[in-house]
């Protein structure tokens, strides 16, 4: 719960969080080392100085760190914890659903645990989706199209094997497909951040919600165009939001574009914890105003009502969270974590 300076309670759903193990002990090879180092560079590159973590803590933090940063010191009511396996890089995976489900078990009301699968596994991927539904009753999955798998260095949402998986997701009611568009490697000769496969997949799977993490940046224009055409495409603010600190005017341009093109109903807050912690992000977001000239040029405003939608109401709608019922449930399940 975030309390505004005026005393209003804002329900916060953090759409993008992780509980990973990127420690040297778990790294399988140089790629694993470089992957967590890249995350750490994002962390140090865009966080306010007073929010910086030691590298060793960043590589592997505890469950108590997570609870404290999200729900005790942080404003999150509910956190969606995403799974990213990266088994080619990490011995036990980076953040598998087993690891995530374990951390969520202590406070089930607080977490939505999303699964992940790799369509390149073919039949096994389909079996795994059944397993995810039966074992964890997942409502969403995280797709990481830049993931390596043996000789393959990436895949597309429109690959035939991927379509079979999405058909099954649709059938089983796994409705929320979070798509992380990392710098894909293949084909090497093309622009590496192409988001057009989202367009086709979203058209072909109207029952599914496609949440494009970090709004397709650095292809914001393509993303906005797609999200404007497709009613079932959403933008996650993870990675875009931290610019609010280091380059606030630039953040204003991004959020103005999003509001102009896709509107306030389709933008979702996400901290990308533990790359960033939600408290400072939410505080700065609530206090933020788009610079006047940018707002005037695009004819948009970032009002309190819109901020409230972005911070929680939009995600609550996608994940069928009954906010009043959820607030009651949360009030009845206090925290017990080790004191600092």
């Amino acid at each position, binding site marked *: 719960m975030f309390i505004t300076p005026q005393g209003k309670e804002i329900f916060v759903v953090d759409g993008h969080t992780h509980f990973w193990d990127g420690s040297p002990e778990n790294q399988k090879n140089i790629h694993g080392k470089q992957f967590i180092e890249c995350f750490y560079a994002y962390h140090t590159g865009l966080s306010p100085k007073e929010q910086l973590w030691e590298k060793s803590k960043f590589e592997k933090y505890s469950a108590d760190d997570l609870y404290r940063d999200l729900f005790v010191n942080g404003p999150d009511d509910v956190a969606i914890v995403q799974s990213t396996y990266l088994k080619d890089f990490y011995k036990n995976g980076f953040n598998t659903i087993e690891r995530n489900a374990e951390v969520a078990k202590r406070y089930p009301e607080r977490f939505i645990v999303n699964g992940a699968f790799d369509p390149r596994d073919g039949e096994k991927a389909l079996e795994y989706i059944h397993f995810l539904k039966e074992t964890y009753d997942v409502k969403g999955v995280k797709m990481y199209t830049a993931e390596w798998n043996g000789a393959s260095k990436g895949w597309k949402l429109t690959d035939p094997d991927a379509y079979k998986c999405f058909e099954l997701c649709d059938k089983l009611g796994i409705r929320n497909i979070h798509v992380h568009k990392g710098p894909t490697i*293949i084909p090497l000769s093309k622009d590496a951040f192409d988001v057009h496969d989202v367009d086709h997949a979203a058209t072909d799977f109207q029952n599914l919600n496609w949440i494009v993490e970090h709004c397709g940046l650095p292809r914001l224009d393509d993303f906005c165009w797609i999200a404007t055409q497709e009613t079932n495409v959403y933008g996650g603010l993870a990675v875009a939001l931290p610019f609010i600190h280091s380059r606030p005017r630039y953040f204003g341009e991004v959020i103005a574009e999003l509001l102009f093109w896709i509107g306030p109903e389709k933008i979702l807050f996400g901290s990308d914890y533990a790359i960033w912690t939600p408290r400072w992000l939410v505080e700065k977001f609530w206090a933020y105003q788009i610079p006047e000239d940018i707002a005037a040029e695009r004819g948009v405003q970032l009002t309190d009502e819109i901020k409230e939608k972005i911070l929680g109401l939009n995600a609550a709608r996608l994940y069928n969270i009954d906010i009043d019922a959820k607030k009651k449930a949360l009030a009845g399940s206090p925290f017990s974590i080790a004191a600092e």
Partner: protein
Amino acid sequence: MGAVRIPSRRQAELWRRLAEVNDPELDEPITEMGFVERAQMASDGSVEIDFRLPTYWCSPNFAFLMLDGVRRALDQLSWSPAYRVKLHDHMFADEVNRGMEAGKTFGDIFAQLAEDQDLGALRDTFRMKAFKRRQEAVLRGFRQHGLTDREILGMDLPAYDVARFEAGEAANQKPRYRAALLERFADRQADDPVFVTWEGQSIPVGALSAHLAELRGVRVNMEFNGALCRGLKQTRYKELDVVEGEPTLVDFIMDRVPARAAPTA
């Protein structure tokens, strides 16, 4: 005396040539982004370049385009030196370094991974983005300067050349836009309007705001990458400092050398 000056003159020429190579995706000089970690000239005039990108994961095609640009820049040096260019800490560093040394094309190096045999289309896309980003900065500069949209859109090259901006983004981009315009429309007439679309269409006076909004979208994307790259690159340098114990010259230049804490014992 003259002989003594040659190395420093050559050193300056070397950096000037390197500064002409842009990160294709960001349209910013690789020297300003800090990607050229070392450019050393030996006593026999031969040159060694160490090149490092912000992350291990930077797209190999972009890495190749930059290194190819470096190769071309070195080929233009007045004393035609032997040179060696090395890419560090990149997932495809070995492949790229071996290929560059053998003078291979991108298609040769990544025969299996690259679908197309050349990067021509990608280069064109980046040329278009650079054209638009530069144009936006200058257009906004003229608007801020108080010119009307009609005056701006009626401007020809002689008028453009006499205009002056105070130091800032518009001033930086003005000569760069000029270069992009002349490259794009080599057979344009001197009195043709300076501001046209990438396709060569004139921009109606009433449409300048909409045109600028489109250009803004292009810049927002490029700036996202630029800001991330700068942040990531800086972090990589910091880590290098820790590994080697002492800050490098770059850290002093960039004012990144932290004050040392006094010993507490």
